[in-house]
């Protein structure tokens, strides 16, 4: 359970969600990304490879972060969604709002 981040050579901040992204921990996640944005980071990749489930507040935090990052001229990409998580984005039509790559490696190629 938790969030780990590392910087890719091209300067993309990759944040891995280990466990759940839900109402109980989304604030910690949000703060982590906002701090990096404040610190000058502009390219973000959230890796869901090790994520169990996301609730609507987790989706909400992704929506609001994406907007904030775009406003600063940056970009937020998502990767590593399994079939279930992808279904959540499709059901809510959020798949139309985000750049979603199959894997973190794929996402980094296009960055």
């Amino acid at each position, binding site marked *: *359970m938790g969030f780990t981040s590392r910087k890719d050579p091209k300067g993309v901040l990759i944040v891995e969600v280990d466990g*759940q992204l*839900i*109402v*109980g921990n989304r604030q910690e996640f949000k703060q982590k990304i906002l701090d990096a944005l404040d610190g000058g980071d502009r390219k973000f990749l959230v890796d869901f490879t090790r994520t*169990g*489930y*996301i*609730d*609507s*507040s987790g*989706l*909400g*935090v992704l*929506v*609001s972060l994406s*907007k904030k990052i775009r406003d600063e001229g940056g970009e937020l990409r998502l990767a590593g969604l399994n079939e*279930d998580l992808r*279904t*959540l984005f499709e*059901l*809510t*039509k*959020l798949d*139309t*709002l985000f750049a979603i790559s199959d894997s973190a490696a794929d996402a980094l190629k296009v960055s």
Partner: protein
Amino acid sequence: MNAASRKPLSAHVAPLAPATRGLEAQLAMHLPSDVAFIEEAVELVARHLEAHFVDRRTIRFNCRVALSEALANAIQYGNGGDRSKQVTVRVLFGKTAIEMEVSDEGNGFNPASLPDPTAPERLESPDGRGIFLIRRLVDEVRFNDRGNAICMILRRA
């Protein structure tokens, strides 16, 4: 809601081993109104659900998300985060269905009045997807008249 657009949940759910003669069981749990308990409560219910299903995929995902949403609403809106108020979870493991009921001590709300979160003008809103997701992830959703109890039903294949 368009039934055809629903994820065909029941297809993922297989009944237990043939030995099952269909005894019914009910699990009851109370939790304080603190979102920090949601994860454990969801995990616990998921583990108990696994005691009744062979196919764990639906349990792992659909039930966890739906229950997590219902608990978050009960804790935050229903009980207003007042830890002295309780949220009650009841899971009925029936012969043909599983029912998960979440109730709070609040005044309820009118679930019929919620706007569609997939409408273009709401798509970038950070909120308003909870009940919508629940409805898509389980087979049937019922509220009590007051609106402080939600019952989420999963039919067994």
